């Protein structure tokens, strides 16, 4: 159980602070299924939620867990589930449903090694593409990658704000190292968090259409079930009223809306860290636990006379495209360490300019990429630059 006492310095895990973040954001419904390494979140909430007028239920599988969370969300409750790799795969069906039906919900996926059962107790970062594209069809969603225990709190609070504001499923993706590691946290952040409550329709029930809102950065209102607004929700392509449609124009509007409402607010999602980037000749792109060892490596490289810098996305989806284009414009040497076979490295290639030299460091053994690994790769990359420029 989370040991946070609110106010002092506590030694807490990433999973503990995901729980605290959810509660601070106003969580009142959790449905989940046990899976390592996320189970502590369910265990904590099974004890906390009933005592706060909230609801915890352990469902029969992860598909049901997210289904129940979406159902509860429609009654106006801030709802969440938590899982890991195999469970996240099962949830993809309902992530697509939440995207299509535009129901707010938060998913915490603690990334372990995969594929399949893979490495239940060890770390991976191989679900980052799944977080964007895991469900069938085309839709946009948001995903956050915390790098510290405190950031588990902050990203979870933010996930709820985005889910509630934009009526989308949002995933928080701590990797196993971040979820299980404990570090000192100043728990005053818990009391200081500002929960965001979903926008309510400004129209009476007889005029209400759940899917006719104007797309804007402010998000969209949604009515609750059981409060006089008797509307229809479906995963079928639907018109503004929510009822299924076969009209190509309406279908197109429905499908574009769930994409455009996120695209239009892209800048609102941008959350990144730039560490010693100004004069960097080696740019390291890293996120999650690996960003920590990357930072360590950057400092040690600088001490050794190599000007390295770190660009770290906290929000990985929607990808911070316009900022990344700026950051990568001048980059000539980019290093991408990841606990996968190069998923985000593939993504950032879209933003690199011609002639940029990219080196990937990939680990699939469940262990972290060490500062030494990053430093060695950086040194090799640095040397290669010199060799080329002397040609």
């Amino acid at each position: 159980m989370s040991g946070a006492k609110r106010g002092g310095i506590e030694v807490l895990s990433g999973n503990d602070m995901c729980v605290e973040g959810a509660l601070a954001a106003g969580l009142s419904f959790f449905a989940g299924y046990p899976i390592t390494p996320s189970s502590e979140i369910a265990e904590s909430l099974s004890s906390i939620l009933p005592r706060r007028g909230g609801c915890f239920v352990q469902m029969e599988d992860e598909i049901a867990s997210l289904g129940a969370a979406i159902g509860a969300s429609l009654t106006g409750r801030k709802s969440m589930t938590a899982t890991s790799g195999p469970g996240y795969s099962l949830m993809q069906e309902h992530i697509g449903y939440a995207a299509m039906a535009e129901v707010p919900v938060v998913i915490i996926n603690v990334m372990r090694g995969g594929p399949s059962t893979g490495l239940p107790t060890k770390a991976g970062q191989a679900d980052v593409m799944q977080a964007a594209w895991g469900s069938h069809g085309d839709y946009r969603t948001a995903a956050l990658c915390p790098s510290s225990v405190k950031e588990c709190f902050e990203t979870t609070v933010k996930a709820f704000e985005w889910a509630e504001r934009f009526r989308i499923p949002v995933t928080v993706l701590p990797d196993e190292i971040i979820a299980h590691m404990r570090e000192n946290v100043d728990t005053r952040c818990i009391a200081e968090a500002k929960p965001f409550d979903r926008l309510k329709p400004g129209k009476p029930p007889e005029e209400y259409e759940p899917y006719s809102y104007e797309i804007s950065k402010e998000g969209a209102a949604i009515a609750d079930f059981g409060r006089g607004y008797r509307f229809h929700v479906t995963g079928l392509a639907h018109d503004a009223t929510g009822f299924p449609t076969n009209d190509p124009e309406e279908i197109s509007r429905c499908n574009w809306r769930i994409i455009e409402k996120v695209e239009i607010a892209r800048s609102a999602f941008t959350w990144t860290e730039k560490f010693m980037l100004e004069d960097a000749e080696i740019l390291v792109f890293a996120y999650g636990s690996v960003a920590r060892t990357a930072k360590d490596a950057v400092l040690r490289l600088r001490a050794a006379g190599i000007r390295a810098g770190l660009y770290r996305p906290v929000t990985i989806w929607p990808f911070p495209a316009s900022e990344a284009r700026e950051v990568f414009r001048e980059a000539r040497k980019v290093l991408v360490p990841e606990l996968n076979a190069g998923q985000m490295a593939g993504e950032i290639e879209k933003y690199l300019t011609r002639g940029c030299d990219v080196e990937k460091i990939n680990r699939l053994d469940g262990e972290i990429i060490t500062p030494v690994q990053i430093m060695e790769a950086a040194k090799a990359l640095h040397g290669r630059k010199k060799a080329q420029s002397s040609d």
Partner: protein
Amino acid sequence: MSVVNVRLAGTGGQGLILAGLILAEAAARSHGKNVVQTNSYGPEARGGASKSDVIISDEVIYNPKPETIDVLLVLSQAACDKYCGELSPGGAVVFDSSGVVPPPGLKAMGADVTGIAVRELSNEIVANVVALGVLAGAFGLVSAEAVESAVLARVPAKAKDLNLKAVRRGIEEGRRIRSEMEKK
């Protein structure tokens, strides 16, 4: 030292992960240190290998996984064999003298962890708390008051006396092995 990397290693079920957490809590709460604690364990709930790493630092800690170990505590031969090679230059190993034999050539100190728990306190379950006391007493990683209050904050009311005895006896044992080491 501005950074100390500590590893507590043994067999699953010995409570070393909790001991590592208490050490981190003592360092953070009482001494205002930055700490990172990580674990690794096998699929077994009991048995199997288990380790808990604690980084205690005055600086911000980026890398959560220690690259070398300054203080290694081992409660099983398997853990001793596995981790002694990761000691930093000048690093020390504390081994449970009832049953663990360290390799030669190391700064090694035998502490009677299991013996104290079983014979003096009649409860093997507090061996982890004895071990925690030993680390505090031998290396001054945290003060006696800090580790005692951190232990008390983590144990149920009815077990407070036993655990306080265990940690105090551990600190005493830690101080003993320290002075023995210094005599050498």
